Every structure is written in structure tokens, then in C-alpha cells.
């Protein structure tokens, strides 16, 4: 018994305490979303009433174009996910499998650039896109396509590193065999690399989906019009300062928006974690 206490009890104490810490905000949001008063005030931590009025408000209140925000988010994040994985896969293939002059230098430069947080160049992006707006109003500041273009700027740098570990694990002998059989680089890419890499490409595109979903600052700068906003920008503007009034609807909205992301994340857990630790364990 004393042995159990000494060895196991403290582990459970830590586990329970941290679980409480981890779950508290999530629990709070759930009970807020089913609280019919919709107020921020917590009268009781155990819900006494159950109501879907906050959820209904999201879909019926014309001042909260929640469905449009969701659609915008899905379109933007989805497009970025697909395009950036296309860019990332072909770049990773070139840098991992093909030989060319200046490769090492380019890769080092890429690494350096990829460290530069996009947000630091925000003023410059803003001014550049303002100029683009001058001659191409559909692509410049304030438009979703403009935002997409800016997002794609980081696609190559980031995805190369995500894909690198995997690409390296495909035996190079496969490529060489294909080459002996007379396959061009293009054929090797399409017929050997892509089929083998398909699962990991799916993972990378989902990660990029989550990343885009979580992007706030550029989206906020670009999407001024209420109906062009993403969920993140929309909900932020919606509660902005008025926590007490709009809390219930916000809670409902954030739950609906978060659930798909949490599900994607949990189902990719294995890949994400191995990706996280791969770099470190190799140390």
C-alpha cells in the first residue's frame, strides 16, 4: 500500500490536476453554449438548463453571417491546403532527389527565409498588395484571392521541411531502377514518388489546413468586408470587447468551428507526434 502511494499516487495527483486545468476552459465553453441566457456570467458550474438557442442564433441572426464565415474558411484553407501541398511535394522531390548546382546554398537560404515570421514583413505585404490592388482590384488588398496568394508564399519553405523526413525514407534505389529503365525525372515523380508519398501528402495538406485555419493577422488585415471574413476573424470581431453580451453565441460558434479541427488533429496524432519528435530524437 505504501509502495502504491509512493509510486502511483503522485502520478494520479499530477494527472488529475493537469486534467482539470486542461479541461476547464473547454468545459466552460460547452456549458456556456447550452446556457439559454447566453451571458458570460457563470451562475453555476453545473448546467441547470439545456437550450440550443445560442446555436440557433448563429444560423438565424442576420448580423452574424456564420455560415458564410465557415464557407470562406473552408474555401480559403482548403485551397491553400491543396495548392501548398502541390508546391511542397514537387519542391521536396527536386531538393531531395535531383542533383543541381547551388542546391546546398538554395536549401540554406530557404531555411533562413522560412524562419522569418511572415508577420514581420506585414507592413511591406500591406503596401505591396495595396499597389497590386491599384491595377488588379481582384487580387489585391481586401480580397480573398490576394490573401491566398500571400499564404502560398510560405508554402515551399515550410512544406519542404515537413516532407523531407518522409522523402528521405523512400529508398533511392527505386529512383535509380526507374532511371535505368529509362524513366525521366517527371515520370519518376508521377509514377513512383507521388503514389508512395500520397498518404504523407494528405497529412501535410491537413496540417496546412489547420495552419491556415489558425492564421489570424493577415486574414484580419485583408478581409475587412463582413461577408468575406473567416471564422476566426468573424468571431473575433463579433465578441470584440463585448464579451458579456455575445458570449453564448460565440461559445457555440467556436465549438462548431473547433470540432472538425480537433477531430483532424486527433486522427493525425500519430503523424504529428512522430513529426515533432523525429527532428529531436535524431539530434
Amino acid at each position, binding site marked *: 500500500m505504501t509502495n502504491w502511494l509512493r509510486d502511483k499516487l503522485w502520478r494520479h495527483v499530477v494527472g488529475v490536476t493537469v486534467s482539470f486545468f486542461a479541461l476547464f476552459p473547454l468545459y466552460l465553453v460547452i456549458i456556456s453554449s447550452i446556457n439559454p441566457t447566453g451571458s458570460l456570467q457563470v451562475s453555476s458550474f453545473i448546467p441547470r438548463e439545456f437550450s440550443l438557442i445560442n446555436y440557433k442564433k448563429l444560423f438565424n441572426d442576420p448580423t452574424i453571417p456564420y455560415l458564410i464565415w465557415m464557407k470562406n474558411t473552408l474555401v480559403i484553407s482548403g485551397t491553400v491546403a491543396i495548392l501548398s501541398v502541390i508546391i511542397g511535394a514537387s519542391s521536396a522531390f527536386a531538393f531531395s532527389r535531383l542533383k543541381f548546382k547551388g542546391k546546398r546554398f538554395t536549401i540554406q537560404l530557404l531555411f533562413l527565409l522560412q524562419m522569418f515570421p511572415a508577420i514581420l514583413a506585414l507592413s511591406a505585404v500591406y503596401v505591396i498588395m495595396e499597389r497590386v490592388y491599384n491595377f488588379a482590384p481582384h487580387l489585391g488588398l481586401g480580397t480573398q484571392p490576394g490573401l491566398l496568394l500571400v499564404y502560398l508564399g*510560405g508554402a515551399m519553405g515550410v512544406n519542404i521541411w515537413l516532407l523531407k523526413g518522409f522523402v528521405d525514407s523512400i529508398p533511392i534505389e527505386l529512383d535509380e531502377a526507374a532511371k535505368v529503365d529509362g524513366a525521366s525525372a517527371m515520370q519518376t515523380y508521377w509514377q513512383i514518388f507521388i503514389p508512395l508519398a500520397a498518404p504523407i501528402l494528405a497529412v501535410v495538406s491537413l496540417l496546412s489546413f489547420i495552419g491556415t485555419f489558425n492564421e489570424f493577422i493577415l486574414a484580419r488585415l485583408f478581409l475587412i468586408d463582413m461577408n468575406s471574413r473567416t471564422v476566426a476573424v468573424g468571431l473575433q470581431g463579433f465578441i470584440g470587447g463585448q464579451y458579456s453580451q455575445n458570449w453564448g453565441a460565440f461559445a457555440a460558434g*467556436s465549438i462548431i468551428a473547433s470540432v472538425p479541427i480537433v477531430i483532424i488533429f486527433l486522427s493525425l496524432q500519430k503523424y504529428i507526434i512522430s513529426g515533432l519528435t523525429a527532428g529531436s530524437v535524431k539530434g
Partner: protein
Amino acid sequence: MLEKVKHNAAKVLKYLFVALTSALLLMLIQSAFAKKEYEIGAFLVLALIAILVTYFSNVSIPLKFFLPGLLFLLAFVVGPILYTVVMSTFQYQTGNYISKPEAIERVRALGVAPDEAGTTFDVVIGKYNNQIAILASDPINKKYSINTLTENIELAVNVVSLDENGVAKEAPDFSPSNTAEIAALDREISNIRFKYSGDYFISLQGTSVGAVARQVLDYDKNQDKFTNLINGNQYIDNGKGNFVNKNDSEEVLQPGWRSPIWFSHYIDLIKDKNVRSPLISVFIWTVVFASLTVLTTFALGLLIAVAMSKPIRGRRVYRSIFILPYAMPSIMSILIWGGMFNTEFGAINTLFGTNIAWFQSATFARVAVILVNLWLGFPYFYLISSGAMQAIPSELSEAAAIDGATPRQIFYKITLPLLLKIVSPLLIASFAFNFNNFNLIYLLTGGGPRNELDGQIAGATDILISYTYKIAFGSNVQDLGFASAISVIIFLIVASISLYGVKKSKVLDSFS
């Protein structure tokens, strides 16, 4: 046979795609040059050439694979970085936002004064002999005229048709414009100067009233200065993007223009106390914030990893709970925490029975920021630490146990040092990330609370990046030039930290 068909189909697709992209680029290039955006136009031309050469020849096969990525990278990462450096050497802020020729044009347009009597006319906009003109009426003095850009044609009362207020609505050879035509003239309309007499002209105020005015500020192109024609004051280029009175440097003509001032922003950062001291305090807090975040998240993550390192009952349940904060979209979590810290109704005060104004006090706001970031970040280090602990060979601790070491000794002498060695690049990466953790600060506290000591903009929880954002996109003055200078400095800091981390992790060596 089938292979061949496939091959040809792929080729056709490729050409189609390249042709479409080129067509689109050509359109953009044309409109870019038409609107005088030469830099962007030139970049697009180069991009087009690169695309055509790469995909229609075999100059470089690897380039076929990464050219699209490269072009996006150049356009939206490299370009903005270089532009940031350039902007940091410019006076570039509200009031100094346009180019010099545009600014001169605006100063000229604004530099007019009404005549001494303040004469105004009721006007009708229209055409006279196919030229833009106004039909001006002075119903009190019964004076009527048609004014074009070059002529002032006086009309007798009997040739015009008047409405009940004595305002002329029609005149011979004058055709009034309809609303659509006037709307098409749009903003230019207030800049049109209709001839009156001598130096005086009539300018429109709205679409039905014209006022007599004359040019007061006159621009001399050769000497690059403005002269006030009434009192003779001279305004010269002050080298910082404004025309100022030669004898009184406080008297500035608006608007100014974006003007190269070289390293003035950087020099101000060093010399000007009002600029330097808020920046230093923000910098210190940024370092403290990032360090405390790394420390707390790693400590908690490690603690859990150690606690969960033995198979205990419910370990899987614990594990899935611990991952949840990491799986939640961080933006949503931060906004939720923002509500929880609300003073009056927030769950935190309710839970603990306190009445703390969390975001009103510098200390509490800082505690809140660290606490929320702990919640967001500990799962990451839990995952990392437990992964790393599994990678440490168990023979080491077994051997130590045989030699009589206690579990505590094993942890501190063997596991921890090895673990630290493994995770240190990630600790550095986490530091660099949190150094620029804009979303957390901006969405949780907005950088506040603000203290008078912190200068005009900086708040107690502002980190460098949120401070920069406020300078560039704040509500009062938007100073893009100064913000760019700070961005450049942040980049140098972050790059050196990251490079140090990279050297440690040797990640670059694996690419050869």
C-alpha cells in the same frame, strides 16, 4: 500505345496550363504598367520569362519542379523582406504616404484661398461647345455667365431661363449634364478650375455651388519650392518628406510624401529617449515572456511526461485529455480565455471568489498571458518529452539502478541531462516562436494595459511584434517606416537565435 496517348495528353495539359498562366500574367503586366506600378510589372515580366523558358525548354529539370514555389516565395516572402528593409529607410507614415509628385499636386490643390468678398454662385454643370463648363448664377445681383476652363462668357438675363429662385437652368449652346455624367466625373470634379477673371477661378463645392478662389501656393519646379503669393512666404523641401516654411520650421504644408531619410529611424532608436525607452521596456518584457513561457511549458510538460512514464491506470485517458488544448484551434482558445478573465462575469474570478481586474493591472495581465500560454503550450512539451524519454536507452538507467542509484538520482543525473540535450533545439525554436507570438498578445490583452510611462503606444504586455503592429496599423498615426525599422531589428534577433538552434540540431547537414 496507351502510354503514348497518356504522354501526349499530359503534354497538351501542360501547354494549356502554361498558356493560361502566361495569358493571365500578360494581362496583369499590361495593367501594372498602365497604372505605373513598374516594380511589380517588372517582377511579373521576369516571372513570365522564367515560366516560358523553364517549361518550353530543358534548361533545368529541377527548376520545372520548384519554379512555382520559388516564384511565390520571391513574391510574397523575399520581396516583402527586401521591401521592409527599404521602407525602414523612408519617412513613411500617415501624412507622408504618397509620392512626391502626388504630394505637390495635392498641396497645390489645397493651396487656394477664396476671394476677399467670398463670392459664390449657384451652378449647373454641363457642356458648352463640347467642353466642360458651368452655368453660374448670382440671383441677387442678377449676374449670369457660362464659365469654361478658358473663358468667362457673361450672359444677359434675357437669354437664360430661370427657375423660381432666379437660378439659371438653361442657356444657349449650353447643355446641362445628367446625374450619371456628373457621377462619372466623380472626385475630379472639385479639382476643375473654371475661368473667372484674372488669377481668380471658380471651383465647385459639391455639384450645385461654385466659389471664387485663387491660387495662393505656387510651386516653382526649378527651385523645388512653394511660394505663398499673398504674403511671400517660401516653403522648402525639409528632406524629411515635407515642405516647410523657410523661416519657421514648425509651419509644415500638408500632405507630405514618403521620402528617403536613410538611417534616421535607426538613429532615433538609439538617440531619442522617447523612442528608445518604450522600445527597451517592450524588448525586456518580450524576452521575459518568451523565456517564462518556454520554462513553464517545458516544466509542466516534463512533469506530466515523467508522471505518465509508468503504466498507471487511466494513462490513455489522461493522455487524450492532455492533448486537447493542443488540438483546439489556438485562436478559439485564446478568445475563450479572454472571456474567462473578464473582471465582472469571468469564470476565473467566479471560481476563486476573487474580484481581480485582470487586464487593468500590468502584473495581473502579465500573469494571465503566461498562464494562458502555459495552457496552450504544455501539451507540445509533454509530447516531446515523452517521445524523447523513450529514445533514451533504458540500459543506462538500469545500469545506474544496479549501481545503487535512487530513482531521483537517475532522473537528475541521467535522464534529465540526456533529455535536455535532445530537446534543446526545440526549446530554442519555441523561444523564437513565442518571441513573435502575436496572436496570443493581440487577442488576449491587445497589449494593454497601457501606462503613461510606456509612451504613446506600448502597453504592459506588448511584445515587440504587437508593438510593431500597433505602430504600423494603429488608430492614430500609422508609421510604416518606423515599424519596418523595428521589424528589421526583430528579424536580426530571431535569425540569430534560430541559427544558433539550427547549428545545435545540425538539421542542415542532412541535406546534401
